[in-house]
């Protein structure tokens, strides 16, 4: 029994020193966002979406992804931005959250970046409180800044309202 090392300790040491982390990047209104690559299931082009009446405003509807029903979330609205113009076609990133699939609707999806931990920083206190809630932190890239989205909070509709 005493050979068991407390699990928490081991994990934290592992977490503390990750060399780099991979992120799927995406753009909303020119701003770069990223989510850990391992949470991403799929990247989709424009889809036929069924509206869901009475749903929260940020829920754009649901769609069929190879026989599974995926709930589409408009990240723009979630971040307090304006709705995307009708004529512009967006893209979506599908993530798995507790066995349910959600599609995060963004303007466009970029490449996968490997980012070193050294470039990570906490949210600046001046960040919009609304954004601060959904952002884990910021990576300093050479030419721009990447906001790491907290997918869990993004999809947790019980907290706000």
């Amino acid at each position, binding site marked *: *029994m005493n050979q068991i090392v407390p699990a928490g300790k081991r994990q934290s040491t592992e977490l503390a020193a990750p060399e780099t982390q991979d992120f799927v990047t995406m753009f909303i209104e020119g701003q770069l966002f990223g989510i850990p690559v391992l949470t991403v299931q799929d990247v989709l082009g424009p889809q*036929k979406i*069924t509206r*869901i009446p009475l749903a929260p405003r940020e829920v754009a509807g*649901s769609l069929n992804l*190879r*026989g599974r*029903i995926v*709930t589409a979330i408009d990240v723009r609205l979630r971040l307090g931005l304006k709705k995307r113009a009708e004529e512009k076609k967006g893209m979506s990133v599908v993530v798995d959250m507790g066995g*349910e699939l959600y599609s995060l609707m963004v303007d466009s999806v970029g490449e996968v970046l490997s980012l070193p931990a050294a470039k990570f920083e906490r949210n600046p206190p001046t960040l919009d409180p609304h954004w601060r809630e959904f952002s884990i932190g910021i990576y300093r890239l050479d030419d721009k800044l990447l906001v790491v989205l907290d997918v869990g909070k993004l999809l947790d509709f019980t907290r706000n309202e």
Partner: protein
Amino acid sequence: MDDLLSEFLTETSESLSTLDVALVNLEQNPNDPQILGNIFRLVHTIKGTCGFLGLPRLEHVAHAGENVLGKFRDGELEVTPAAVTLILQSIDRIKLILGHLEQNECEPEGSDEDLIAQLNAMAEGRAGGPPPPPPPPMPTFESVARQPEPEPVAAAAPPPPEPEPDDEPAPSASVPVPAAQPPAVAAPAAVVTGAPVEAKESAVAAQTIRVNVELLENLMTLVSELVLTRNQLLQMVRGKDDSEFATPLQRLSHITTDLQEGVMKTRMQPIGNAWAKLPRIVRDLSVEMNKKIDLQMLGADTELDRQVLELIKDPLTHMVRNSADHGLEPTEERKRIGKPEIGKVVLNAYHEGGHIIIEISDDGRGLNLDRIKQKAIQNGLATESELEALTPQQIYQFIFKAGFSTAEKVTSVSGRGVGMDVVRTNIEKIGGTVELKSVPGKGSSFVIKIPLTLAIVSALIVECASERFAIPQISVLELVRVTGNSEHGIEMINNAPVLRLRDRLLPLVSLKRLLLLAEDTEERQETFIVVTQVGTYTFGIIVDRVFDTEEIVVKPVAPILRHISMFSGNTILGDGSVIMILDPNGIAGVTGESGLLGNAQAAEAQVARESHADAKTSLLVFRAGGEDLKAVPLALVARLEEIDLQEIEHSHGKPMVQYRGHLMPLIAIDGVMNFRDEGRQPVLVFSDQDHTMGLVVDEIVDIVEDRLRVELSAGSPGIIGTAVIAGKATTIIDAGYYLPQAFGDWFGRNDKEFGNPDFHAPRILLVDDSPFFRNLLTPLLSVAGYEVISVESADRALLLRERGDEFDAIISDIEMPGMSGFEFAQAVRSDFRWSQIPMVALSSHATEKDFERGRQVGFNDYIAKFDRDALLSTLASTIAASKGAA
């Protein structure tokens, strides 16, 4: 092999392999209550099942083992390796007995006293001494002389492989399994008699295999995709008749459909499968507890996902067992408090608005509130002051907490406090809920609500504001198309839309408004109303268009959308689009009609239509034997005829005519035949089943609809009294008086005992399937001073009981379609609400045997159908007697 037994073996061998692992874990983590609880439950289940299967050896070993485990759990005993070894030994013993059981379908002879003694010693804490001497591993086999020594081949045989028989009956042991078996397999004859050890393998490796549900799930997803692809292809070929793909595609389409159905079928099973064991369990329980229990199972063919079925099987068994054991009072006590001796446990399963509801109710004593309070405080679940603030229904919920049992003593059946917490955990695991209602002295009922997660339902696809929705077909009654020029349009009462539908006002719900969809401005040419039923509450949903019905697989909505009560799920249609499934229950709830309220209202409406107390009656007004107007309820008159006087014949001095192949006696209203001299004579034909009679009248005046309120009761025979009909005083004729005159076997006395002023309109429930008799007796009884509610079936009558109606007496026909009078009486007597109401049976068959049977099932009296006087006097006396008694 007995289905029950083979299933038990399969289950138990699974449990045992889990147990081995769990026990070893326990030895390493002696203080983990979760592992301990798990082990305890497994042993408990084995013990319980053995008891019901009549396997005393197994049961005793398991019981002793459970005792020790119970002490572990309560912290009274320390988990030591010696103790665990002992438990493992008893598990081995159980395995040994099981092995024998599988071959011979009976327990081996021999005794387990040694082991049980050790276990009991352990339980009493006397195990401090030396570790128990390792008993010979197979003592019982040695004691069974006729049992051959296991052959080495068999001993080396691997344990039964994972694929084990399913619920399907295992093929009998006499079927030799070809190949795969060592040649040592004995000849079939030997299998039947001697059961060599190899038979173990053949019995277990049956024709069914267990397939991981996840695999089925994947298959299902793949098939769904296949269907979508097929549909796309069909779309492409459509309109091109000469396409070379048309034929193969059609074939593909058929196969796909079959495949889809097949895969879906693999998952669906009637809930009756999970209930198959229950009658036996209840029977054994009733023997063991010396209680009389009637287990009723309704809706056994309700289909349910296999996975869900598996998960609710044990909870259901537990709950039925609990109801029978704790819920129902002992027979003596039931007798003492005036309940029917036979306690009732009712299981009822049905689909309701995207859920499967399973109700388990008993008519026992209900939960003991004080005991639960005590226990809650004892176990530190709540303080006294906390309990004060709770309602009884909230306090009842404590029985779902772990380690909670209020049974006074631990029986081998239940009372160890496993059970209800397991029940709740298992049900919540599949996203279901369990509700509990209990009324002291009346019984308790559990309502399990399981979402139809994977169940297949037929749904109506509708459109509203360009969005499509599915409505479960099961709650759709009918569709009504309303156009600008249809007879009845949608009318508004202060913005509340209603529709006149067959003389009723149907409340409407606009889907557009309900779901806050964009209101289109243009006036529609036509709209559709989906008439929907929830419980007994009926309402219409206004939609723009109605498409087809489709078989859909209900999938739960994402957690972030669960709060929208309007949807019970979503699904993917054949064309690949996602669609929301409307929940009629939720809609009914949101529009201000909770299910319960709706029920009551609808039942009320139903009753209003059924009772004749104040309703208008169609009356036939005529003249006969005088100038004054006479009338008879039109419903009683089968036909109006004019007969040619030439055709009247006489037999025994009585006039009659040949009418429709039978002789029809003719009766004059005043007893004196005043036929016209020539020409034709109007006759009112009364008919009931095989009896037909003609009442000769002078002139038929009119048919009027009016309230039949007899204001003066006449003393003369054949007349009910006088009523004002269409503004004129009219004599109401008692057709019942004339009927017996026509036929000798009917009574014909006329010393009526009309209304006794001592009674304040006693309420009488009349149950008769024949409208003739209802129409005949209702006025008769109301004239006699009774308030009469008449219904056409026993079911309807019981509905009134559910509604809480009270009556002073019940008159019931015996021969009725559906529930007969005898069954009805039993049903009435078995529930304490109406158990004291005097019941009078009414039948055309009045033999001594019938009288006897009637009394046995609870009728106070038995009266021939046409004996009105006896009926009236019996009613008066039985009501008086019951009043006097009360």
